[in-house]
């Protein structure tokens, strides 16, 4: 037995020593070696192992080995499982087992809570065991009463607890970030493991080889029963197979999934290569720590130690062998096992509890804020709580048998994590639902079938359910669930919990779908081992020949670029990749090179096309692909980014990519829109520019001057036209000029000032502007004022247009109008000139005007002068002498004279005294010049004035011309009228005297002469004889008889020419009538031969008592009149001849007819004198009856020829003495027809045929030859038939004597209405007494 103080001091020193080691490790940042890492994992061997293994071996045989064999089997797969978890830890920065499971299943907080609760629940009893072992071994080793009452078991327990709390916090919970490696703690655990192993080996070796003589002695001396007990593999009352396998399975899961094991193996792993050492060293450690379990157990039994206290054989044996040092070493070893387990477990549980139970449930309140700020302290509190709970739990259970199996119970609890973890690591479909179902079901089964029975058996809970089953259903008894019996409790629990756990995990994972993030994590975890685990990027081997790669790229780029460009681009790519001087490159450099080349191509054909072309052409080989994949994996691993972070980042980048794509599309769209806008803007700008250019061009070239000026008239801007209008060289010259200075008229400047004062906004005016050279022009100015906000005119924009031409045009038009209107009332040229001069003075204006006419004009000049009061017009003839007149009219074009420069006769004469300039404007037309108009004034004549004068003169000329033409036309009309009268006279009368009278009257009137006569030519005596005369004072000329070639008339007739004697007074040449004519006082004489058809008919003589100046027209008219006279004479003579001829012809006809009548009478002797009588009587009766006078001649001729047809009757019939027979009558009755045939061809007798042809027709239609009836018979025949019958009856015939007139008259009356027309008979009867 050892003094308590010694134990305490040594224990304290041991702990301080551990603290110093830990501190030293952390201070020096000593790298955790694989061996240290492995030894730290030996924390698996707790006091329960340290002490309990021997106890278990002593009571149950080799079953304890499963606690170490299981881990060994599990460790075989550590390169697959543990490494994967380490990678997950590195990737996701996990801090605990709960973290691992939670992250795998979509970061499920619920799962983390469940895991934490299970761990917490399973760990508290385990802590209790550890504390119990310390206290128990302390009681064993400590000498009772050595420390007094103060250091009782309870006090020592509290001391140990406080010590554990202190060291746990100091070693394990000093840092806030649980992911940070606790190198000091790991080192401490490694040291403890060594101490633990060494102490156990020491006791084993000493016991075996010191206390006993080796293994043989122990095993040989052991009773067979004990020996069988030691070497059996299970307890007697249980199924050994199931128990063995169950324990083996539980220890397999425990070595990996116990929180402390997970923490040290995974969280504290600095390098996954350490796993490789742990894979063999940890099994070796376990092997060594268990190799003396059986010997020690056998030695304890041999030493007579009670089997019930086999758990302390390790400590009891040194004690009974009185080897306190070894006992103390064993105690320290056990102490190390217990404290290391408690510290690391407490640390992990505190992390899990704070992270998964406390922090998640403290939200948005004051406590949560405090907790979040005091997380480390919260963990300390959890440490305190957990350790104290363990302490009080061991106090509660005391010496209960429960403690013996408490470790394996915890193992069973931890085993519930196995399906979830293993499934999560290796089955991608394992999901959160399955994890929930598996964990919860497994946990419940564990509680129901293991925890509850223990507590019930211990008497802490009712055993009713244990005995009768849940709800009284025996089928649901905890220890015989579903009637399943024959298994030890551990195996029973393990079987059902695993059955439900695995089944429901599988079913849950099958039936429910993973979400996307869970799938991603599963996929990531599933493939996490395929990536390289290097902590840093390995140096990459440069084994790709750069020239070969360049060649491939060159061929590729040559398809798109010319070779020269390709080489340049490739060189740039090499420089960008900084490999231009290398011969061989690594895979990453190759990829970078390809990337740059692709970018080059993208700049040519676009990114998408470049990507496609690149992928189709430049492809990495399989080895290259593998290599680059490894590089990427290495990079990812190096980054040590948790998979969630990667996922988050991937999602982030995916979302970002999507956003970027969307944003890119949006940008592209906006870019397109911007491009369109830009294009539109460019177009607009271009249009604006063009518009501006057009505007400037327009501004500069518009034929109107544009300007902007200040209200004071200062020009701000002008265009070129403005400059040209004002005759300046450039704009600057004009801009230096005030606009007001350009005004000629001061009134216009004044007007401008008024405009400004009145703030007129718009204004138009016409002003006279002055050019640079002093010339002026009329300009139309249009202003538009622009004001500021204060309504103050800032500037004026305006236009200037040269309207001089318009003004001049208007002036000309006005002049035209006024002069035309004025001249309209002047019918004669004489009247027009004064008007013309007067208007000219006003229109120009001018002071004096003079019209000088040509010599032939009757007037000399017309002077028009104007003063302030009136216009004076003076018309004078024969004022100038001939020389002056000729000088004034001797210009043929407009001419300007200036006083003192060009001398002119008009200066200082007439009304031109006060003029300095003289303009001569010749007036005339085709027929000749009229004269020259002279205009004088003080001012110089401008071109416009000259032009205006020209226009005025043209109008005047035109009007004068028209007036002259009008006058001539009137004269000609009068002539024509005169000729018409003469023609009428000739046509209406064949009396030459009358014709000559008309002719002479017209001659005198139209030719405006005093007298005229006509002398007729008698060719028979070749002399001219007076025929008619007019205008003479006496009749002496009537006796004129002139021989041909005598006198003017004779010469004219003889020569057939007009003889003109302008002044008879000056001519003394042999006119026979001189003496006569002297009395008439004739001065001018014209003798015109009258010739018709080449024959001289006479001479027309014209006399005028004044001198005549006949023009051609007068002369022509004279000849015309002479011609008319000749025609009249000829007509008269011809008519006279015709009358004579007709008369003779008629006489011949009549004589012939009468001859024919007498011849008929002579042939028909009985009718001698008959024709003459009936002719006369017929005329009388016809007259009586009222026949027209014209028809009487035809009746006379018809009566004379009434029997002309008898010339065709043979004499034998005509002259037959007796009555005619019928045939003879037929022939006789044909004589009217013979008459028709004989006379019809003679037109002269055409109207006389009625009697010869019809005088034998009767009123009643019984006559012959055509049996005409009534009035069908021509009246001449009806008249003649009565006379013919009357004369026949009253004449003697050979066959009868003549009837008396009464009888004949009676017969005639009787035949009225039968043979004769009753009305004519009536007329005959009335006529009878007088005529017959």
């Amino acid at each position, binding site marked *: 037995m050892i003094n308590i103080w010694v134990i305490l001091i040594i224990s304290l020193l041991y702990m301080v020593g551990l603290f110093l080691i830990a501190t030293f490790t952390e201070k020096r940042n000593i790298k955790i070696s694989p061996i240290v890492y492995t030894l730290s994992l030996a924390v698996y061997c707790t006091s329960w192992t340290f002490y309990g293994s021997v106890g278990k071996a002593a009571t149950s*045989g*080799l079953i304890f*080995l*499963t606690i170490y*064999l299981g881990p*060994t*089997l*599990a*460790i*075989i*797969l550590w*390169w*697959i499982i543990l490494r994967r978890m380490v990678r997950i830890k590195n990737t996701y920065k996990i801090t605990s087992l709960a973290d691992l499971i939670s992250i795998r299943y979509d970061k499920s907080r619920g799962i983390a809570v469940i895991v934490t609760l299970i761990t917490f629940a399973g760990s508290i009893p385990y802590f209790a065991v550890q504390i119990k072992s310390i206290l128990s071994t302390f009681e064993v080793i400590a000498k009772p009463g050595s420390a007094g009452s103060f250091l009782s078991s309870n006090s020592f327990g509290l001391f140990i607890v406080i010590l554990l709390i202190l060291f746990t916090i100091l070693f394990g919970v000093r840092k806030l970030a649980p992911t940070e490696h606790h190198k000091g703690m790991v080192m401490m655990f490694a040291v403890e493991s060594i101490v633990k192993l060494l102490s156990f080996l020491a006791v084993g070796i000493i016991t075996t080889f010191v206390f006993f003589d080796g293994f043989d002695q122990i*095993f040989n001396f052991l009773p067979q029963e004990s*020996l*069988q*007990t*030691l*070497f*059996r*593999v*299970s307890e007697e009352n249980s199924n*050994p*197979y199931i128990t*063995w*396998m169950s324990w*083996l399975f539980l220890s397999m899961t425990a070595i990996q999934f116990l929180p402390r094991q997970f923490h040290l193996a995974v969280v504290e792993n600095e390098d*996954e*290569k350490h796993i*490789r*050492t742990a*894979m*063999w060293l940890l*099994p*070796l450690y376990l*092997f060594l720590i268990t*190799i003396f379990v*059986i010997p020690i157990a056998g030695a304890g039994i041999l030493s007579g130690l009670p089997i019930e206290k086999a758990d302390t054989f390790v400590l009891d044996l040194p004690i009974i062998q009185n080897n306190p040092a070894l006992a103390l070493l064993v105690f320290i070893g056990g102490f190390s096992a217990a404290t290391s387990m408690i510290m690391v477990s407490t640390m992990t549980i505190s992390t899990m509890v704070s992270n998964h139970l406390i922090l998640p449930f403290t939200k948005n309140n004051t406590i949560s804020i405090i907790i979040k700020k005091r997380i480390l302290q919260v963990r300390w509190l959890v440490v305190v709580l957990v350790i104290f709970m363990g302490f009080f739990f061991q106090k509660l259970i005391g010496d209960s048998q429960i403690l013996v199996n408490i470790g394996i119970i915890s193992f069973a609890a931890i085993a519930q994590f196995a399906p979830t973890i293993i499934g999560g690591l290796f089955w991608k479909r394992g999901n959160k639902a399955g994890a929930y179902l598996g964990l919860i079901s497994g946990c419940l089964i564990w509680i129901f079938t293991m925890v509850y029975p223990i507590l019930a058996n211990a008497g802490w809970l009712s055993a009713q359910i244990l005995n009768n089953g849940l709800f009284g259903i025996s089928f649901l008894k905890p220890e015989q669930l579903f009637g399943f019996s024959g298994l030890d409790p551990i195996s029973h629990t393990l079987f059902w919990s695993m059955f439900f756990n695995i089944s429901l995990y599988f079913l849950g994972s099958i039936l429910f779908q993973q979400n996307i993030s869970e799938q991603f994590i599963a996929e990531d975890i599933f493939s996490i081992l395929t990536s*390289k*685990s*290097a902590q840093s990027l*390995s140096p990459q081997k440069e084994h790709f020949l750069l020239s070969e790669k360049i060649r491939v790229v060159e061929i590729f780029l040559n398809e798109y670029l010319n070779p020269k460009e390709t080489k340049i681009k490739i060189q740039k790519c090499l420089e960008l990749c900084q490999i231009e001087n290398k011969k061989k490159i690594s895979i990453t450099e190759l990829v970078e090179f390809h990337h740059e080349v692709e970018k080059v191509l993208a700049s040519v054909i676009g990114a998408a096309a470049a990507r496609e072309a690149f992928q189709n052409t430049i492809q990495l080989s399989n080895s290259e692909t593998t290599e680059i994949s490894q590089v990427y994996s290495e990079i990812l691993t190096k980054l040590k980014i948790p998979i969630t972070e990667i996922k988050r980042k991937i999602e982030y980048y995916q979302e970002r990519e999507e956003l970027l794509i969307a944003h890119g599309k949006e940008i592209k769209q906006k870019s397109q829109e911007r491009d369109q806008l830009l294009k539109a803007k460019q177009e607009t700008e271009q249009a604006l520019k063009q518009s501006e250019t057009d505007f400037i061009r327009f501004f500069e070239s518009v034929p109107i001057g544009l300007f902007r000026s200040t209200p004071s008239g200062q020009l701000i801007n002008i265009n070129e036209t403005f400059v040209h209008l004002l005759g300046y060289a450039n704009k600057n010259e004009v801009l230096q000029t005030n606009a007001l200075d350009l005004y000629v008229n001061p009134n216009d400047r004044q007007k401008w000032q008024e405009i400004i004062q009145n703030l007129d906004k718009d204004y138009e005016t016409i002003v006279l502007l002055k050019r640079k050279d002093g010339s002026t022009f009329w300009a139309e100015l249009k202003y538009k004022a622009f004001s500021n906000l204060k309504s103050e005119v800032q500037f004026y924009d305006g236009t200037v247009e040269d309207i001089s031409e318009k003004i001049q045009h208007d002036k000309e038009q006005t002049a035209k109008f006024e002069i035309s209107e004025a001249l309209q009332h002047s019918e004669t040229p004489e009247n027009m000139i004064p008007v013309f001069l007067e208007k000219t003075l006003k229109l120009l204006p001018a002071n004096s005007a003079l019209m000088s006419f040509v010599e032939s004009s009757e007037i000399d000049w017309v002077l028009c002068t104007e003063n302030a009061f009136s216009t004076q017009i003076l018309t004078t003839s024969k004022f100038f002498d001939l020389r002056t007149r000729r000088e004034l009219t001797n210009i043929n074009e407009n001419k300007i004279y200036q006083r003192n420069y060009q001398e002119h006769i008009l200066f200082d004469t007439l009304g031109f005294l006060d003029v300095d300039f003289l303009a001569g404007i010749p007036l005339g037309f085709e027929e000749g010049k009229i004269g020259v108009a002279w205009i004088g004034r003080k001012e110089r004549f401008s071109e416009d004035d000259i032009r205006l004068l020209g226009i005025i003169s043209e109008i005047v000329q035109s009007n004068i011309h028209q007036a002259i033409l009008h006058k001539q036309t009137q004269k000609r009309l009068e002539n024509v009228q005169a000729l018409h009268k003469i023609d009428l006279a000739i046509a209406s009368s064949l009396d030459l005297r009358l014709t000559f009278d008309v002719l002479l009257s017209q001659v005198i009137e139209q030719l405006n002469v005093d007298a005229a006569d006509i002398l007729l030519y008698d060719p028979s005596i070749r002399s001219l004889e007076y025929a008619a005369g007019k205008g003479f004072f006496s009749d002496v000329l009537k006796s004129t008889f002139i021989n041909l070639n005598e006198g003017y008339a004779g010469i004219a007739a003889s020569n057939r020419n007009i003889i003109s004697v302008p002044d008879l007074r000056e001519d003394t040449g042999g006119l026979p009538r001189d003496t006569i004519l002297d009395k008439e006082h004739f001065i001018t004489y014209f003798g015109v031969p009258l010739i018709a058809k080449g024959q001289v008919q006479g001479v027309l003589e014209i006399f005028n008592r004044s001198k005549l100046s006949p023009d051609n027209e007068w002369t022509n008219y004279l000849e015309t009149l002479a011609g008319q006279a000749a025609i009249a004479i000829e007509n008269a003579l011809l008519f006279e001849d015709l009358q004579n001829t007709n008369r003779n012809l008629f006489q011949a006809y009549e004589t012939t007819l009468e001859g024919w009548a007498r011849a008929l009478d002579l042939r028909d002797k009985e009718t001698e004198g008959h024709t003459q009588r009936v002719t006369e009587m017929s005329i009388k009766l016809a007259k009586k009856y009222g026949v027209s006078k014209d028809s009487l001649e035809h009746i006379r001729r018809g009566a004379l020829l009434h029997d002309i047809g008898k010339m065709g009757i043979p004499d034998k019939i005509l002259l037959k003495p007796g009555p005619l027979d019928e045939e003879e009558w037929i022939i006789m009755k044909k004589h009217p027809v013979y008459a028709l045939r004989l006379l019809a061809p003679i037109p002269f007798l055409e109207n006389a045929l009625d009697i010869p042809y019809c005088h034998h027709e009767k009123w009643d239609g019984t006559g012959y030859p055509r049996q005409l009836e009534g009035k069908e018979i021509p009246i001449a025949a009806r008249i003649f038939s009565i006379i013919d019958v009357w004369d026949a009856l009253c004449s003697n015939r050979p066959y009868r004597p003549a009837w008396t007139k009464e009888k004949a008259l009676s017969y005639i009356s009787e035949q009225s209405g039968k043979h004769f027309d009753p009305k004519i008979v009536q007329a005959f009867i009335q006529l009878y007494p007088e005529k017959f």
Partner: protein
Amino acid sequence: MKKPREIIKSPDFQVFLFLLGFFLFGKPFLDMITSKPDQSSFLFLLLTWSILIILLFVISIFVGEDEGK
């Protein structure tokens, strides 16, 4: 044919070894080789365990050697 080195470091071999160990450490196998509880089963277990440790040592040498390069 793969080299022994490649076989040893392959995960398949580790799984095989695990199954083999599970079989060798299994109670049925123990019963099969030891009809009654005695030292032989214990020795068998120790021997097998030792062999496994040696194999694990060999495996630890080869696994991850590529990643270390």
